[in-house]
């Protein structure tokens, strides 16, 4: 009779994605491009927030670009392209999240040195994108007031992975009886100490704070890049 044998492996199932993401991160850092991955449920206002963010950044002469993931259509890319920034749509078809190899493929033909900031709008989904590193320097998770205060408790994985939580559509907070204190308690319960920003892309409320947060992270990233590569030319 055949004897059962054991072959030890100990390897992360997403290790290929992780490796590719690490390569991307090195490329981004070398090119001095700050990459932000945006996660939320469908309809939380990622595209609207990005439209306004990119418009304001471009007014400050920052060179911004975006990759937009969706199961189907290029509607979001068309909306974002109106800002004048380079935008590419990643149609994932059956895939409910973006993976590092998609980012690599869709960056082809772009010179990363031409950009200061790259936004990656993930597929609207608070579960599947969570474990996939895209090489980003920062991850923002959005929560719209219309979704209710308990989203962070239902999807702790996404909120745990956030570098910052952006509450969106605050202009509608009163109409939907959004309880800010409860929402904040829930976010903090799953991720103690995470920065929370309250925004409305429609009224402009809180956008300065959000952009200031991005700026601070971007500066921190370039400071680290300069320290770790002393020969790096200043520009």
């Amino acid at each position, binding site marked *: 009779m*055949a*004897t*059962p*044998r*054991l*072959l*030890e*492996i*100990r*390897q*992360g*199932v*997403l*290790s*290929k*994605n992780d490796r590719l993401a690490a390569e991307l991160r090195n490329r981004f850092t070398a090119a001095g491009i700050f990459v932000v991955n945006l996660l939320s449920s469908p309809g939380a206002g990622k595209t609207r927030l990005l439209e306004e963010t990119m418009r304001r950044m471009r007014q400050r002469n920052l060179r911004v670009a975006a990759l937009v993931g969706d*199961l189907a259509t290029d509607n979001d890319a068309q909306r974002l392209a109106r800002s004048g920034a380079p935008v590419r749509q990643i149609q994932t078809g*059956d*895939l*409910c*999240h973006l*993976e590092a190899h998609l980012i690599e493929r869709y960056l082809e033909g772009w010179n990363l040195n031409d950009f200061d900031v790259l936004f990656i709008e993930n597929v609207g989904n608070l*579960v*599947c994108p*969570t*474990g996939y590193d895209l090489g980003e320097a920062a991850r923002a998770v959005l929560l719209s007031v219309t979704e209710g205060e308990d989203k962070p*408790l239902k999807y*702790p*994985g*996404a909120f*745990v992975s956030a570098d910052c939580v952006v509450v969106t559509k605050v202009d509608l907070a009163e109409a939907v009886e959004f309880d800010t204190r409860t929402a904040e308690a829930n976010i*903090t*319960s*799953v*991720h*103690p*100490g*995470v920065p929370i920003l309250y925004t409305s892309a429609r009224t402009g409320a809180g956008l300065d704070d959000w952009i200031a947060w991005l700026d601070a992270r971007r500066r921190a990233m370039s400071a680290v890049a300069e320290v770790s590569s002393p020969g790096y030319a200043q520009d």
Partner: protein
Amino acid sequence: MGSCALQLLPRMHELSIAHSLVEIAEEAAAKAGVTRVTAVHLRLGVLSGVVRDALLFGFDVAAAGTRLEGARLEIEDVPLQAYCAQCNAVVTLPNPQRFRCPRCDEPCGRIVTGQEIELTALEYEESAPEATAS
């Protein structure tokens, strides 16, 4: 192809995870000269975002036609553990909705375990290329 199994899962990332799992396991098995895998051992963190049943289902789909076809997927759940600075200890959090130390109730957000999706081992049957007398 075009089985209903594939149509049931198209928008769940468990199928992607299952494909990655099978790919890694296939490579490891091939390297070790294993032709038929009978079981796959996986550690799954409670905060991995992976739904166990969906993964089991996705695994069967992904394993079809490979040296893992028909293999059992043995899943070991990994609890959520975080570092509590107050207690200077790694503590187990019973509830992923509440990142507070069960001992001192201070917030603790530094995760130690609970996010892993790790292939730990493969079981296979020795095909015994050299027959040994017994």
